[in-house]
């Protein structure tokens, strides 16, 4: 769980930093595109996560994407196959590739790295030969099919509302099933724990459905009709992008309105319980917030308005626009990082020192995310179809991994293959399954990428995608040693990768540096993860040590 929060913090940081430095980041067009690309790469990453969980690796993803992306237009356009059939066929091919990889790895005991490296080379060459290096596309006739990748079925508000409805149902079910938590020390904490999922669900539902209650076609009688019409138009991708600003406004007001009192309560309870523990995080957060304000006041406008070729005077120093922009960028980077970091520190310290404060965290985070999202144009933006597919894939993958026998088997064999085998798990079959799932995800990704771009160049389409996918999985908490990983983290990891790339483009950083920056950020993320884990481990040991005197008899007992 901590890992997911960490990677979520990283996503928040990259988004916030980019949004502060560039207006276009929170524009509808940009948000839509970033969401779409994140979703596409998210699907690939979930696939490779399965393989990484077994302790293997799949380097062939990019080439499989390329192969599928070539095959699909060839089948649909050149051979005139019906699109659903063609998609099934290419997925079948992808699944076959995964099966082949899995069998080679388990039956012949080859190393996954080698097998999939050969796959990477082979499929790339094969697709180039198949397509004769010509650019492939669907032309104009298959725009209906292309909606699968570029469609806009409904707005984020609808998605938020639906998520709220699901959460509300779950929250109510949990609240009535569990009753008061016996473990909580006082009644207020117990109530907060019991009702906050339902409460957050209600808030989300309220925001999601707000455009029906306020403003925008406000006659309640025709709401359902309009909803239906809205969705129908959404499928045809003709909905005007600037449909409504009501959900966004509501999010902002609700979020900001809740944030202040919640924050005060949160800090007060923590302060009462353990003032020393929260003192430094509070001071740090305050300082960094002041610094952030300063940046917004001075450096951000300087960054946005400066012209590279002009010269500017900053205090006593005169510098070129280029240097000024670089200076502003770096200082803001550090300040935003410090802000997110110190706020995270504060939340973690406060929730550790007081049970009540901890119970408040979900609401607090909701309020904060509400106010941030309300500031952007996200609620008014449309959800790309790949995002819907990603959600479906992610939910299925998560259920598979955590609630089915096979998911447990995968995790167990990733941790200790021999013990899994000695426990009667058919480890070979499970490993094959992981490679098949990975290749299927790559196949689905290939279909969507192909439809999205409409111009597939066999020689380069999908190049490096395997590395993006693996990086996202690692960022999202998968260990390359195997046996560890969760789907939500991986999805967020993929989003981080895309937002980062987007940020590089928007901030006018040379795109030549793109790989270097992405590499650095991943490295930093992994280092921070290790350092934090070491500190936590040391703290755990220290705590055990201080409470050790009474524990000696038990600890030394056999």
């Amino acid at each position: 769980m901590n890992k997911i929060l960490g990677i979520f913090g990283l996503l928040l940081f990259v988004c916030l930093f980019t949004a502060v430095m560039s207006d276009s980041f929170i524009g509808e067009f940009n948000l839509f595109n970033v969401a779409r690309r994140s979703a596409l790469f998210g699907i690939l990453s979930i696939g490779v996560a399965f393989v990484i969980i077994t302790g293997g690796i799949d380097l062939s993803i990019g080439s499989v994407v390329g192969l599928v992306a070539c095959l699909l237009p060839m089948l649909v356009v050149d051979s005139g196959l019906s699109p659903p059939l063609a998609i099934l066929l290419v997925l079948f091919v992808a699944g076959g590739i995964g099966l082949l990889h899995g069998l080679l790895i388990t039956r012949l005991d080859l190393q996954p790295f080698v097998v999939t490296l050969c796959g990477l080379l082979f499929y790339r060459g094969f697709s180039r030969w198949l397509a004769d290096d010509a650019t492939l596309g669907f032309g104009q006739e298959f725009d209906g099919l292309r909606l699968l990748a570029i469609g806009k079925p409904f707005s984020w508000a609808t998605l938020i509302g639906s998520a709220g409805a699901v959460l509300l149902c779950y929250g109510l079910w949990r609240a009535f099933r569990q009753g008061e938590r016996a473990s909580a020390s006082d009644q207020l904490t117990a109530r907060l724990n019991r009702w906050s999922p339902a409460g957050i669900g209600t808030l989300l539902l309220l925001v999601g459905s707000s455009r029906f209650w306020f403003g925008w076609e406000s006659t309640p009688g025709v709401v359902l009709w309009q909803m239906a019409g809205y969705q129908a138009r959404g499928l045809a991708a003709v909905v005007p992008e600037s449909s409504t600003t009501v959900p966004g406004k509501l999010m902002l007001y609700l979020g900001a309105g809740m944030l202040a009192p919640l924050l005060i309560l949160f800090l007060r309870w923590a302060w009462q319980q353990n003032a020393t523990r929260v003192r430094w995080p509070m001071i740090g957060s305050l300082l960094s917030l002041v610094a952030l304000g300063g940046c917004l006041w001075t450096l951000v406008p300087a960054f946005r308005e400066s012209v590279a070729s002009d010269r500017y005077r900053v205090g006593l120093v005169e510098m070129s626009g280029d240097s000024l922009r670089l200076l502003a960028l770096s200082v803001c980077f550090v300040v935003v990082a410090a802000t997110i970091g110190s706020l995270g520190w504060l939340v973690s310290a406060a929730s550790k020192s007081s049970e009540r404060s901890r119970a408040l965290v979900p609401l607090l985070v909701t309020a904060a995310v509400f106010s941030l999202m309300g500031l952007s144009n996200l609620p008014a933006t449309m959800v790309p179809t790949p995002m819907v597919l990603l959600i479906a894939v992610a939910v299925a993958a998560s259920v598979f991994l955590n609630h089915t026998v096979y998911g447990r088997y995968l995790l167990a064999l990733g941790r200790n293959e021999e013990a899994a085998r000695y426990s009667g798990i058919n480890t070979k079959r499970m490993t094959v399954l992981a490679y098949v799932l990975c290749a299927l995800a790559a196949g689905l990704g290939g279909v969507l990428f192909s439809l999205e771009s409409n111009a597939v160049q066999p020689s380069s389409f999908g190049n490096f995608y395997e590395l993006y996918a693996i990086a996202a999985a690692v960022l999202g908490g998968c260990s390359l040693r195997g046996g560890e990983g969760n789907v939500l983290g991986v999805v967020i990891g993929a989003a981080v990768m895309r937002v980062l790339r987007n940020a590089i483009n928007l901030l006018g950083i040379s795109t030549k540096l793109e790989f270097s920056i992405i590499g650095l950020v991943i490295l930093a993320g992994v280092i921070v993860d290790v350092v934090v884990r070491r500190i936590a481990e040391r703290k755990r040991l220290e705590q055990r040590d201080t409470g050790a005197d009474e524990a000696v008899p038990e600890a030394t007992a056999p």
Partner: protein
Amino acid sequence: MIDSTTPPAPLLQGVGLSKRFPGVRALHRVDLTLGHAEVLAIVGENGAGKSTLMKILAGVQSPDEGELWLRGSTVEFTGIREAMDAGISLIHQELNLAENLSVAANLFLGREPRRFGLIDHRRLEQESRPFLEAVGLSVEPATRLEELTLGKQQLVEIAKALSTGAKVLIMDEPTSSLSQREAERLFEVVFDLKAQGVSVVYISHRLAEVETLADRVMVMRDGEHAGELVGEKITHDAMVSRMVGRDVTRFFQRTRSAELPDANATPILQVKDLVVPEHPKHRVSFEISSGEMVSLAGLVGAGRTELLRCLFGVSMPLAGTIRVAGESVRLKSPNDAIAAGMGLVPEDRKGQGLVIDFPVDENVSLSHLSEDAVAGCWVRSGVLKQHALSSIERLRIKTPSESQVVRYLSGGNQQKVVIAKWLLMNPKVLLLDEPTRGIDIGAKEEIYRLMESLAAQGMAILFVSSELEEVIGLSDRVLVMHEGEITGQLVGEHVTEQNIMAYATGAERE
């Protein structure tokens, strides 16, 4: 405390050594004296502080309190290197050698004689010869280490220690992976070293070895010095009673059921002419009835583990038949063996028995997952928890909760988790490979009682053990193996140490 009037100062002395780890008091004011040319054995249950003491002596760790004296002057080691320079060498349970290098290269690893900056191979081999002779090893220095048996590798490790000029050798469970013959060879080397004036600190669970080897025995209990025995007084019972802090009966003795298994009933497990891939020249046949406890005795390398692996489907036999409850089964994987009603508690608990980073409940239910699941697929976590809780209660597994990661349990409790996993499957035959290795005496006895009660419920139990006491005390029948072949079968009063060893060494066969 050292003054000129006393006889020559002891070689190595520890005074009031204490060491704490988070949550554990590993050593508490332990005094230790090691004379010149003396073999001092340290015995104690697991967790008694032997390893910590040894690490302090060898400079791996430094004590929180207390002092070390070497030849009458106080020393402080900040690392293993310094201890080595002072003449103290530690020989680990797991060997620290590079298998892909030659014997000579291993001896001088990190201290290679050089010529023009390159390794001088000729000198390397020349210089290693005397040290190999000192430990009685007659191998060419250029031999690659992996070509030697484990016992010889151990001797190389000792030669390596000697080559650093060691005057004190600390040996941690040196015989745990050696065969009887190799172990005896090692004992000779220890006696030789003693004659050459080297002192040895010898740590072992095997009390019989200690009886033969030690001049003096220091017993440890709960991190404290719990008594010392010298010369004649070193007896098995004396050591054990000091180790556990009470007088114990000599060894666990199974209460054998009065009636013999019904001769007409079909045996649960019938093995006929089985050819184990590692020993293709011999055929193995035996039968086990329900409720019977049979042990496989023999020296390390006799093919006992390999036989169990074949029976559990880990490796495929070359020929022969296996019948479980009268039905012939073909075992291509552990999965098949489990389906046929077998369970295996493997030798390597951490590598094969457990997913060490998984919690207790997931380990317990790992084999049973698909049976509990809805439609063989959807895991019901409530059921898992119930299974875990009932296993914890039934086997008395000491764990803070069912979601504790098994890595943090003691060896005995880890082994109970492995057994719990199989009990959930309710097997007809339970195979156990060295079930009590690395487990202290208290937990051992619990495992014995558990095995006994399972047999009483009608399970057929086949276990491998290298501890003769265990074999003799626990089994209804003993199958003795020698180099892949069952050389003898012992029942009733014929189950004696002499008989077992006679068959195990191949001196006698039926």
